[in-house]
Each structure stands twice: as structure tokens, then as C-alpha cells.
């Protein structure tokens, strides 16, 4: 018998190291959830969908870079990129939001979270932050790619060109942030109401899609005021119009908003506030 490879059962040892408490728990849940959103550390099945959407987003960005560097024509502005990605983002949310919250409801994992140094509101807000982060990666990541691609493929004075691009980039990033806030809080609230992922996904799609034709109908049949306000009926078009108010009209924007810009701004702020409040109420009530 070898004398070197002896396994000693050293029995149970108490833990004397650091206990980092609530903020560490929040941070750990955040990292865990962002990883789950992209299927990192999960099987291949969990990766297919998020990475398909990312491939679409990056593919779109690559085409934009190619068009810009070959023809010097802008295929899409940075903000326009965020606008035109809103449907892929909706699909992404329909899959990821239930992945983040419906699973824990179905598996009844919440009592395990709530029996740790974490508050119910911490859980809800951390899940929201992780979902927003995932959406930001999807929206802002390709914009940064376009920026780098365009700025460094230019044969003019690169530094001043990069400066010009940067002034175009930041409205795009702000737009992404706003989309992430509005769409994530709504999607997470819908998904948190069911423990079935399929229902969660259907619910998210329904909330975003059912209201789309309403915008069109209102625009066609409405009077001048209704026309200007018609985009309020859908969270995606409402966000787009709020951005139009903030940054001024551009090619990818919808119909003009007249003087109702502040109404759009207030509307999406109110929507976020209501969704977050209801989300917190939901998790205060959910059984432990």
C-alpha cells in the first residue's frame, strides 16, 4: 500500500473566515442572475436563445460598420440602432425575464433566499438590475462595436473623427439605458406573476405586442391631438417618442409628437414607477 496517498477524514471543521452579509448576498445574486440570463455555466440549451439574439444584434452592427466604411453613408444612427432593436429586445425579455424570476417561483427557491441575510425587496430589485444589465449588454455592446469599428476604419484625422462619433454615441447609450429601464421593469413584473416560464414569455410578448396595432389605429382614426399622443399606447413607441423629445427628431423616429414631449417623458417615468412598486408589492406578498 502506498504511504503517500492516504485520505484522512478530518471531520467537520468550523468556518472562521469572513461573513460578508447583505451587500455580498446582493452582489452574488446579481452575478448569478446576469450569468443565468446569458446561460453562462448552464447547458447548451440555455445558451441558444440569448446568444441567437446577440448574434442578430452584432450582425446588424457589423453591417452598419461595413456600410459606413465603404459608402460613408450612415445606415443607422446610434440612437436609431436602439430604436430598431426594440423588437429583438422584446423577444430577449420574453425568454430571459421568466428565466430570472419564474424559475424561482416554480422551484419554490424563494424561502431559501429569504432565509438568508437578504430582504425581499433586495431580491426583487437585484433581479431587475440583472435584467437591465442584460438588456444594456444587448443594446449598448453593439453600439460600442460600431463606434470602435467606424472610428478606427476612418482614413481621415482619426482623433477628431472619433470625437465626432462620440458625440453621436452618447445619445444612443442614453437611449439604451432608457429602453432597459422601461422594458425590463415591465417584463419582470409580468414574469413575476407566474411560475410557468411559457406563460411568462407569452405574457411579456402579449403586453408588448397587443398594444402595437392600437398605436397604428389611433394614429389613423384620431384627430390631431390623438395622433400626437397615439404612441403612448405602447411602451416601446412611448420610449422612442420620449427620446425624440429629449434629443430632437431623427430619421428612425416615429410620427411627430407635437408639443407633447413632456407627456411622453412623464408617461414612461410613471410606467417605471408603477412597475417597480407593483414588483415590490408582489414580492412582499409572495409566500416564503
Amino acid at each position, binding site marked *: 500500500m502506498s504511504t503517500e496517498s492516504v485520505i484522512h477524514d478530518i471531520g467537520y471543521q468550523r468556518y472562521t473566515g*469572513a461573513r460578508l452579509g447583505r451587500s455580498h448576498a446582493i452582489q452574488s445574486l446579481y452575478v448569478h442572475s446576469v450569468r443565468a440570463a446569458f446561460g453562462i455555466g448552464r447547458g447548451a440549451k440555455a445558451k441558444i436563445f440569448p446568444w441567437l439574439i446577440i448574434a442578430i444584434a452584432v450582425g446588424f452592427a457589423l453591417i452598419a460598420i461595413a456600410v459606413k466604411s465603404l459608402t460613408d453613408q450612415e445606415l443607422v444612427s446610434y440612437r436609431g440602432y436602439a430604436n430598431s432593436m426594440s423588437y429583438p429586445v422584446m423577444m430577449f425579455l420574453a425568454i430571459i425575464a421568466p428565466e430570472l424570476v419564474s424559475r*424561482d417561483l416554480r422551484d419554490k427557491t424563494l424561502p431559501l433566499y429569504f432565509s438568508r441575510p437578504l430582504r425581499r425587496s433586495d431580491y426583487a430589485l437585484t433581479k431587475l438590475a440583472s435584467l437591465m444589465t442584460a438588456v444594456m449588454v444587448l443594446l449598448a455592446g453593439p453600439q460600442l462595436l460600431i463606434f470602435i469599428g467606424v472610428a478606427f476604419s476612418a482614413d481621415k484625422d482619426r482623433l477628431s473623427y472619433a470625437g465626432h462619433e462620440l458625440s453621436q454615441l452618447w445619445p444612443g447609450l442614453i437611449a439604451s439605458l432608457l429602453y432597459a429601464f422601461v422594458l425590463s421593469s415591465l417584463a419582470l413584473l409580468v414574469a413575476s406573476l407566474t411560475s410557468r416560464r411559457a406563460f411568462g414569455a407569452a405574457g411579456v410578448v402579449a403586453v408588448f405586442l397587443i398594444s402595437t396595432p392600437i398605436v397604428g389605429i389611433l394614429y389613423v382614426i384620431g384627430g390631431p391631438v390623438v395622433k400626437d399622443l397615439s404612441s403612448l399606447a405602447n411602451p416601446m413607441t412611448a420610449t422612442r417618442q420620449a427620446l425624440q423629445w429629449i434629443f430632437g427628431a431623427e430619421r428612425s423616429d416615429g410620427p411627430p409628437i407635437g408639443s407633447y414631449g413632456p407627456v411622453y417623458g412623464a408617461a414612461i417615468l410613471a410606467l417605471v414607477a408603477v412597475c417597480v412598486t407593483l414588483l415590490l408589492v408582489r414580492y412582499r406578498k409572495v409566500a416564503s
Partner: protein
Amino acid sequence: MALIETHALTKRYGGGVTALSDLTLAVEPGVIGLVGANGAGKSTFLKILLGLLAPTSGQAQVLGLDPVAKSEHVRARVGYMPEHDCLPSELSAAEFVTHMARMSGLPATAARERASEALRHVGLYEERYRQIGGYSTGMKQRVKLAQALAHDPDLLLLDEPTNGLDPAGRDAMLELVHRIGNQFGISIVVCSHLLGEVERICDSLIAIDGGRLLRSATVSAMTTERDVLTVEVSEGVELLAKRLAEVGLTAERDGQALVVTMDDEDVYDRILVAVAELDLPLHRLDQRRHRVAELFQTEEVGQRVH
């Protein structure tokens, strides 16, 4: 310092359901059995100790802390194993227990080490890298225990840990709980609706019924004064009973056996002498502790009489 102390603890749910009523008790560290029928208030009691529910009135102290005011501190030092299923199916046990250890406040590296230690202690080895969805009920119960143990708590709260297990699985789980309580230096509150199951492994017992305290005492205090000897002979039971009565021993008939109260050291010898003198074939002579259940039964009967 008492491990758990409550004073007039009462919990009423909306709709007038009283889950706990005027519960006052203090228990010392060790393995504590919390017994009562389903719906007696055991789970409510655990949730109050964890600070997940606020009591309607009265106070509780866990590890010297108020679970309402200091709930995050309490939860960092307590491990909780719920009664029902609570595991994600798509993660491996190793990943999930590591995640839960981090949620309890352990840094990433320590969480990974403690998680695989905890899984080893509950008896999961190579299986811990497989997805939990493919586990048997017994393995899932072990993962539930491991996630409660991974951050090395000072107190474990186990809600019906033998639920859904076959008899062999039950014994293994109880043996594990006993080992954690006695060798790991961790105090345990183990809930069960089966008194016979927990009395073997507990130092003290709390019995509740309909939210009220029936009795709270150490197991030794409940049993020491009541030891009995069981005598079994192949024939001549009547004869032996008569002879034992003559020598001043109180023997009760229990089926084919005689149960003799052991109130003296030499009872053993006196029985042997009586059997030898009558020349009866002795089948069995052993000492057994009074089962705690019997004590609770007398207790309950006593209460009903009042």
C-alpha cells in the same frame, strides 16, 4: 445563554387563525425535537425564529438576538431546511450549494470549499456534479440539508427532514442529523409530526398542539425515573407474576411479557432469583426506557381531564 427563548409568543394570521398561542419556553443548545401534528404551528414557529414572520405579540430570542430587529444577523447564523421541495432542477448540487453559501455571506472561494465539504458530510460525492433534476428524493433531501449547512451556522432549523423518505432513508437522515448535532457542534431544531422518530436523536423536546405548548423538557428528565425491565418466559407467566408479587415487585402483564418497574438496583437480581427458583425457561430479560410518547400520552390525558 439559552439557544432559543420565547415569551408569550403569539401569532395570529389574517382571518382569525391562531397559529401560535402564548408560547413561553427556553431551550439550551443541543438537538431539540419540535413535535406536533400537522398544523400544530411548527412551521410558523420556525419562520418566526428566522425573522420571516413577525409575531402578533410576545417576544422571541434566537442565539441571543431578536429575530425581528436583527433578522439579517440571525439569518446569517442560522441554516434553514424547508419542508417542501425547494431545489432548482437545472443546476448541479455543487453549483447550487455554492451559490447558497455565497448568499449567506461567504466569499466565493470559501463558499465553493464549504459547499463541497457540506455535500461530502451529507454523503454526496461524485453525484454532486450532476443536475439536481435527476436526483432521487433521498438525494434531494441531502442537498436541502447541505445548503442549510454550507455556511457553518450555529443553529440549524430542519422542517420535517425525513419527509418522503423510505424507512432506510429516514434512519440515514436521522443518523446524519444526530451526527451534525453531536460531532459538528451545531445546535439543531428538528420538526416532526412523528414523536417516535425524533425522540431517539434529541436532547430535549418541545411538544406543541394547536399552537399551544404541551411540554418542553430534556429527554433525560422525561425518561430517567421511569425505566422498566421486560421479562419474558416461554411458559409459566402466571406463576412468575405471582412470585414477583410475593417478593414485593410490581409487575404488569404486557402480552406474553411482564413489565417490572425498576425502582431499585437489585430488581434485576431479584427477578433472576425468582425465575431460577421456579425453574422457568427464561426467554428475554432487558431494560428499556419508557418511550417519550407514553409520557406525552399521560400528559395529554391529564390535560383533558381538567
